[in-house]
């Protein structure tokens, strides 16, 4: 009988040797005369375990963690292919506390199924959403989404159903569905994992969006830093087209919807939705003033649904299981689950999907297990490069849109970056300004010039020159950027800067004070 072995093809596993492990195992099994089939899955999402290899046994899938090519021979000899004991054996991965504590709705299949097998997709609940959607009117689909409370997972948290309503209500000969897969925030990788591990969920979600609003064309705009995601999406789109999930008469209905993958070119600002549309149209990624909203005049001036990967990939679940099943999770106005990404100096780094409401402290200390370095956690940046730094004193903040906003922060795309006590927060503040200067689209003076001035001024602070006066200038700059910027790149860069200043004032006063040099 063929023994099935699962090895992630996720970039996070490949980057630590998963391809070489798969090759070594194929070779070793051939030499030993054991009949195996290697299935490349997505990652389950606990990256310290990668490369995580799983063997199908009567007791379920048995995992072996951090398997490197050099380990393969000994593992096979020890009976790994029968699930035998070994120091690398971790048992059934889903029994690990990290996974047991999660509620996986958006990421239900990721790490488990073959991402490019539609049969696997169906067998694990895929296609149910679109099958229900084609039996409904566009309005009914949209109202289901509104009732689910799903809010955009790209950062701004705007209700997805409401956005779709506007597109549906705007008459036009052509409408578009655009998926924002630019995922530029440091500390985030959920979009990447989803596209590599369960691409049909995104395709199904986009097709449902097309049906709901009357759009027939879609684009997925993926950043160029994600070659594996690009390859996976391209293959999945071709397979979906061949199977009738895309094209004319999708899922046996009278609807038409097709889509294409497009690749960015290394510009963080192109994650901003109007900049992304400019880029898709072939121009520089300069942010557009709103109004008009993309929902009314978006890609090529046509009504456009533009949503993050996770927003769209959650749609099939909501349609399949009903709005209630989703809205039952969460707290306050943050309904459902959030795929949170634990990153940076954290022991258990990876994807943790859970209902809104878990506190930052639980996330970092309990789920994350503290720092990887073993030193105390000092600061946590939540929500990417435009997100605030939180000190331990604010670890009681519940993870939801409103609670973070109330503490001058944001959850953004759900990235949580942990730093230990060796971090210098003045340098982190400087980096926030530097990043803004590098990535500014150049349209607004406060963003373009202010960020460069911010770097220079913080350099003086770090050098100990006229610290208090220069810090006052930094605060002033932040104020100007916050209120004089068109988009959140210039407008939110003050969050990391000001939070560092507020919560870690000593770091800005470390250098021996010097007389003003100028």
């Amino acid at each position, binding site marked *: 009988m063929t023994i099935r072995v699962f090895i992630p093809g996720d*970039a*996070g596993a*490949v*980057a*630590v040797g998963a391809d070489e492990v798969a090759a070594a195992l194929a070779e070793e099994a051939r030499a030993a005369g054991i009949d195996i089939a290697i299935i490349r899955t997505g990652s389950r999402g606990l*990256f*310290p375990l*990668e490369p995580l290899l799983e063997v199908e046994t009567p007791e379920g899938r048995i995992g072996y963690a951090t398997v490197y090519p050099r380990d393969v021979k000994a593992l096979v000899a020890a009976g790994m292919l029968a699930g035998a004991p070994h120091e690398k054996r971790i048992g059934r991965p889903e029994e690990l506390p990290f996974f047991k504590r999660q509620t996986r709705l958006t990421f239900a299949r990721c790490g488990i199924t073959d991402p490019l097998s539609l049969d696997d997709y169906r067998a694990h609940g895929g296609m149910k959403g679109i099958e229900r959607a084609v039996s409904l009117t566009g309005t009914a689909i949209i109202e289901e989404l509104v009732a689910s409370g799903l809010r955009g997972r790209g950062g701004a948290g705007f209700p997805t159903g409401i956005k779709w309503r506007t597109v549906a209500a705007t008459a036009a000969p052509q409408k578009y569905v655009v998926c924002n897969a630019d*995922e*530029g*925030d*440091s*500390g*985030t*990788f959920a979009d*990447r994992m989803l596209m590599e591990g369960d691409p049909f969920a995104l395709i199904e979600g986009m097709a449902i969006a097309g049906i709901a609003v009357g759009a027939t064309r879609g684009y997925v705009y993926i950043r*160029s*830093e*994600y*070659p*594996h*995601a*690009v*390859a996976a999406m*391209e293959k999945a789109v071709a397979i979906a087209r061949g199977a009738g999930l895309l094209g004319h008469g999708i899922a046996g209905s009278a609807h038409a919807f097709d889509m294409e993958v*497009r*690749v*960015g*070119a*290394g*510009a*963080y600002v192109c994650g901003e939705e109007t900049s992304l549309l400019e*880029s*898709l*149209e*072939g*121009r*520089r*990624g300069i942010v557009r003033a709103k109004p008009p909203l993309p929902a009314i005049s978006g890609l*090529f001036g046509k009504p456009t649904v533009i949503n993050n990967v996770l927003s769209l990939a959650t749609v099939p679940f909501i349609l399949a299981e009903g709005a209630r099943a989703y809205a039952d999770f969460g707290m306050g106005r943050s309904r459902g689950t959030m795929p949170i*990404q*634990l*990153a*940076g*100096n*954290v022991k258990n*780094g990876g994807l943790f999907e859970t209902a809104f409401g878990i506190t930052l402290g639980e996330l970092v200390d309990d789920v994350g297990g503290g720092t*990887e370095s073993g030193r105390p956690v000092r600061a946590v*940046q939540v929500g990417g*490069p435009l997100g605030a730094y939180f000190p331990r004193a604010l670890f009681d903040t519940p993870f939801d849109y409103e609670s973070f906003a109330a503490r001058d922060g944001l959850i953004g795309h759900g*990235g949580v*970056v*942990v*730093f230990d006590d060796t*971090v210098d927060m003045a340098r*982190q503040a400087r*980096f926030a300004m530097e*990043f803004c200067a*590098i*990535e500014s689209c150049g349209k607004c003076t406060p963003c373009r010039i202010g960020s460069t001035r911010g770097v220079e001024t913080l350099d003086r602070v770090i050098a100990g020159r006229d610290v208090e006066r220069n810090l006052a200038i930094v605060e002033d700059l932040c104020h100007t950027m916050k209120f004089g910027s068109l988009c959140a790149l210039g407008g939110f860069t003050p969050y990391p800067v000001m939070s560092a200043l507020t919560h870690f004032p000593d770091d800005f006063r470390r250098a021996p004070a010097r007389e003003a040099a100028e």
Partner: protein
Amino acid sequence: MALKPRGESGKTPDVTDHQPWSAETARAIIAANAGREGATLPILHALQETFGCVPEAAEPLVAEALNLSRAEIHGVVTFYHDFRRTPPGRHVLKLCRAEACQARGGDALAADVERGLGIPINSTSADGRVTFEAVYCLGLCASGPAIMIDGKLVARVDAGEGAARVVEACSR
């Protein structure tokens, strides 16, 4: 570390077997893509994949095919960090300098690699052996520091030994 062929999608590759500039080849690439909606980026990616960069000589050809001004195309090429004006070194090393990798020792790694290669980040060695660039997140933020070398991703690259291996791979 082996080179990995890429280019299924018109994304910009970092493999080193680029062709010398040829207007004829460029025209063929442009013609193959010009009919697409918003063709500019796919064309520029395809050109860079072939020639290793988007040379200035390509700008009027793209402009003509898309019925745009040369200034517009120049603006696009220079706006995006990915597009190069001259071919890169034989190896292209991208090192993540974003926050999650900083938190995991990225600064020390960057310093070691700069020292080992003898060039600062965002430059090409005088002998044309390596182009060393900063990148802001590769989506490997739970297993940093992360790099991309000739299109291949590598995570958990530590300063010291890891840096030495990277420098070695770029010296071949």
